[in-house]
């Protein structure tokens, strides 16, 4: 099965003009990124999620579910499409074809949904076996002392 990164890279390879693809969760937390963005990932994720939620709310008030957002900047186009628990955003040059971008987004989302569903079981079993690294007392003390030391 393709990895998430491969799915995102595939969009860049197939659609001329695409410069970057980012997959964020519904709250804007970056899950995976491919290509190039001249912006901090965390900031971008927070902004994209907030924009999406704003348009989603407008749609709710109009009794219309939101499917995607297209934004045109002077030299760039941005296409944001929703998927279960996440948002896929494609950034492309101004001369790129929106039809191709939307089609690739749709295909990618089908693959991403499959990929993320298949890994859910693996993650759950890892967590139940306590192999996931939970913060322990020492980690917490370390974080707090670093903050306290900063102020001294």
């Amino acid at each position, binding site marked *: 099965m393709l990895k998430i990164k491969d799915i995102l890279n595939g969009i860049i390879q197939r659609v001329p003009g695409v410069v970057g693809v980012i997959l964020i969760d519904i709250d804007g937390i970056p899950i995976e990124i491919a290509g190039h963005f001249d912006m901090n990932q965390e900031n971008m994720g*927070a902004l994209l999620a907030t924009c999406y939620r704003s348009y989603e709310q407008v749609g709710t008030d109009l009794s219309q579910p939101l499917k995607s957002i297209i934004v045109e900047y002077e030299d760039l186009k941005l296409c944001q499409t929703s998927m279960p628990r996440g948002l896929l955003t494609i950034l492309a040059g101004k001369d790129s074809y929106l039809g191709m971008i939307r089609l690739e987004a749709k295909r990618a989302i089908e693959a991403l949904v499959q990929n993320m569903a298949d890994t859910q079981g693996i993650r759950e079993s890892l967590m139940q076996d306590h192999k996931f690294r939970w913060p322990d007392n020492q980690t917490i003390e370390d*974080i*707090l002392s670093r903050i306290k030391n900063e102020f001294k």
Partner: protein
Amino acid sequence: MKIVNDRFYLKVLLFGSALAGKTTTLAWLFDHLIPKDMKVTESIHSIKTSFGQTLLFDFVPIQASQNIIIRIYALTGQDYYLSTRRMFFQDVDGLFFIVDSQAKEMDHNREFVKEFAAYRKCFPELENAAVVVLYNKQDIPGAQRPDVLGPKLGLQDFPSWPVSAATGANLPQAFTHMVSLILNSLKERPAHEIQ
């Protein structure tokens, strides 16, 4: 709280009336308290109105450890943007309730107490979130004390600090308390509760 890839993401909100000092608090924390090696971004990311107040949010992500990211949002306090404020309350781990301690601001504070109560009904996870009340502007002459304001606003059961976002008084104590609460809550949470 969320887990994405191999990281825990915790969400902390700064909530309170317009001009109560949310952005100033966040700026002080960012400039004076958050260690450089925990900063994910070089500055606070802000979406402001044309007249300089917070339109959507001010945002700072901090990397507390290799796999713990704390995302801090100072929300807009403007009533006009109430509908956008609401969407930040999902999956909240910690909330600083910023109270403007000036007597003339009592009605505005009460409105936000009501709003907070409404969110607690809509978002059940808020019941488990750590809430810390900051009685801000204590440096202003005539500011009311927390032991007076707390019972008037119905916030007396939450841990609280008299603070000044302008000078930073008591903000280190309040912030480390919040971080301690949310990290210990994370440590104690059963694996099956994590989404």
